[in-house]
C-alpha cells in the first residue's frame, strides 16, 4: 500500500457536522444590512464528535448574484475564534463552493458560522465536515489569512479585468503587504456578473513590486459560463509557497475571447 507522511498514518475519515439530522444542515443568514457583520454567530455544532486535522467547508448560497463571505469560529457563544476567515463566493444559487482548511479541532468543540454579504439578509447553507487525517499533505495546520478581503467595506476579493491578450495583461494588486509569512495559498474565483462570457479563463499569481512581478502560480485554468452568473469553481487545494510578510501579491486573468471581470480572493496559510 502507498506510504503516507506522518500526518497521514491514520486512515482518512470524513465526518459531517452533524452526520445525521436535516440534510440541509444549517442555514446562516447575514445581517439585514449589506456588508455588515452579523451580530452573532450561528451555531453549527454544540460539540464536535471527533478530533480532526482539517475542516472541509461547503457553501451553497440561497441567492444568485450576491457576494458572500463565511467565517467559521470555534468556541463558546460570544467568544468564537475564527479558524476560517471570510471564505468568499458568489455565483448561481445552490452551487456549492468549497474550502479545505488544515486546522486542528479537538473533539467536543463548539463550531459556529457567520455570513457577511453584499446584500442584506442573504442566506447561505453552510456544510462543515471534520477530516480526521490530513488530506492534501500539508506539513502542519496553521492560521489562515484572508488576503485583500474586507467584506465590511464591500470587498469580497479583487475585481480583475480579464485580458484577451496572451500573457500581456496588467497585474492587479490583490494585497499590498501580506500580514504574515505565508506558506501556502488557495484561491477562489467568482463573479456577480449576471451574464459572464462563456470562455476559458486563466489565472496567474505573482509576488513583487509593481512592474517587477514574479509568477508563482502559472496557470490555473477554469471557465466562465453564460448559464447563470458563474465562473469557476476553483480548485479546493492549497499550493505551497514561501511569501514573506510584507510581500505584495498580484493576479491577472486572461480570457479566451472576451474582456470580463472576475473577482479573485486569496487565502494564505501562515
Amino acid at each position, binding site marked *: *500500500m502507498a506510504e503516507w507522511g506522518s500526518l497521514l498514518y491514520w486512515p482518512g*475519515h470524513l465526518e459531517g457536522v452533524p*452526520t445525521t439530522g436535516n440534510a440541509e444542515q444549517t442555514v446562516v443568514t447575514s445581517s439585514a444590512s449589506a456588508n455588515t457583520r452579523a451580530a452573532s454567530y450561528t451555531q453549527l455544532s454544540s460539540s464536535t464528535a471527533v478530533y480532526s486535522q482539517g475542516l472541509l467547508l461547503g457553501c451553497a448560497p440561497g441567492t444568485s448574484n450576491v457576494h458572500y463571505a463565511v467565517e467559521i469560529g470555534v468556541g463558546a457563544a460570544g467568544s468564537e475564534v475564527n479558524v476560517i476567515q471570510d471564505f468568499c463566493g458568489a455565483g448561481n444559487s445552490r452551487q456549492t463552493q468549497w474550502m479545505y482548511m488544515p486546522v486542528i479541532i479537538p473533539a467536543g468543540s463548539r463550531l459556529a458560522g457567520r455570513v457577511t454579504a453584499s446584500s442584506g439578509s442573504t442566506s447561505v447553507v453552510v456544510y462543515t465536515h471534520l477530516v480526521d487525517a490530513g488530506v492534501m499533505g500539508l506539513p502542519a495546520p496553521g492560521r489562515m489569512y484572508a488576503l485583500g478581503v474586507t467584506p465590511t467595506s464591500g470587498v469580497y476579493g479583487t475585481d480583475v479585468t480579464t485580458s484577451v491578450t496572451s*500573457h500581456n495583461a496588467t497585474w492587479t494588486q490583490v494585497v499590498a503587504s501580506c500580514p504574515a509569512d505565508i506558506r501556502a495559498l488557495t484561491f477562489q474565483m467568482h463573479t456577480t456578473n449576471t451574464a459572464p462570457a462563456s470562455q*476559458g479563463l486563466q489565472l496567474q499569481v505573482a509576488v513583487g513590486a509593481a512592474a517587477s512581478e514574479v509568477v508563482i502560480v502559472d496557470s490555473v485554468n477554469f471557465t466562465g459560463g453564460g448559464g447563470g452568473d458563474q465562473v469557476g469553481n476553483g480548485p479546493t487545494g492549497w*499550493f505551497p509557497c514561501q511569501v514573506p510578510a510584507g510581500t505584495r501579491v498580484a493576479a491577472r486573468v486572461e480570457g479566451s475571447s472576451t474582456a470580463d471581470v472576475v473577482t479573485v480572493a486569496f487565502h494564505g496559510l501562515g
Partner: protein
Amino acid sequence: MAEWGAEYSHGGLLQNIDPSQVGNFKQVTSSATANTLGSWVDLTTNLARSCQGFLVSYASSSSNVSCLMDIGVDTSGGTSYTVVAERVAWFGHQLRTTEWFYVPIAVPAGSRVAARHQCSTGSTDLRLCFHPVYAGPWSRPAVGSKVVAFGASTADSGGTQVDGAVGGVANTYSGTQWTLSASTGYDICAVCVKVGGIVNTAPANGSFAFRISSSQVIHNGFRFASGSTGDNYGPLPSMWLPMTLPAGSALTVNAMSSVIDATDRLFDLVAYGLVK
C-alpha cells in the same frame, strides 16, 4: 517561514502545460453515438518535465448531459495509451461549471497524455485543461498506479443512482445500501467521490448527505446541495482521503435528502479508488 519538506523545494507548484495559450483548453468530443467513447485527444504530446501528479479542470459547453472521461498516458510519447484514470465524471451541471480532478500518479517527462470521453448525448464536448503538479500538497499520495471507478455506468454515462429519500422519507439515512463495488479487485490506498444529478433539468432546491462504507464508514455525512438554477448537484471538491481497502473489499453508499420528490431526490455517485 514554515519549512516544507525536500519534496517542496522546487518552489514551482502548478503549471499549465502550455501557458502561452489563453483560456488554454483542449476540446474533447464524444462519439456521435450516445454513451460511446470518442477518440483520444492529446493534452500534451511531450511532457516537458516529470510530474508527481496532475490536475484536470474540465467543463462542458452543454447542460443536461452526463460524461465519463478516461485519461491515458503513453510514457514513450506514442499513442498506445494506458488508462491511468477511468470514467472521471462530469455530471449534468450547469454548462461551464468547472469540475476538478486530481490524478495522483507520477508521469515521466516525454510522455504523451490524452483524454477521451463518452456522453449521454452524442458529439458533446468537454473542455479540459491539464495542470502538471511538480511538488506540493496535491502530490500526496504521489505514487499510485491507476485510478479506478466504482459505480460508474457506461450504459448511460452516469453513476450509481442513489435515492436520498427512500419511501419518501426526508432527512433519514435509508436502510438500503447501493453497491458501488461488490469486490474492489485492487488494493486501494485512497478514495475520492463525484456526484451528479442524473440529467435532471429542474431539480428542487435541496441538500443531500451520503455515507460511503466498506468495513468501516469512510465518508460519514458528506453533504452537497442541489439547485433549481440549472441542473446543479454539487459538485464536490477533488479530495482524496487516504484509506486502506484490501482487494476484495465491498464499497456501498446510502444517503439522505431534504427533498422527497421522486425524481429530485435521486442523484448520481461514483467513487474512485487509487490503486497502489
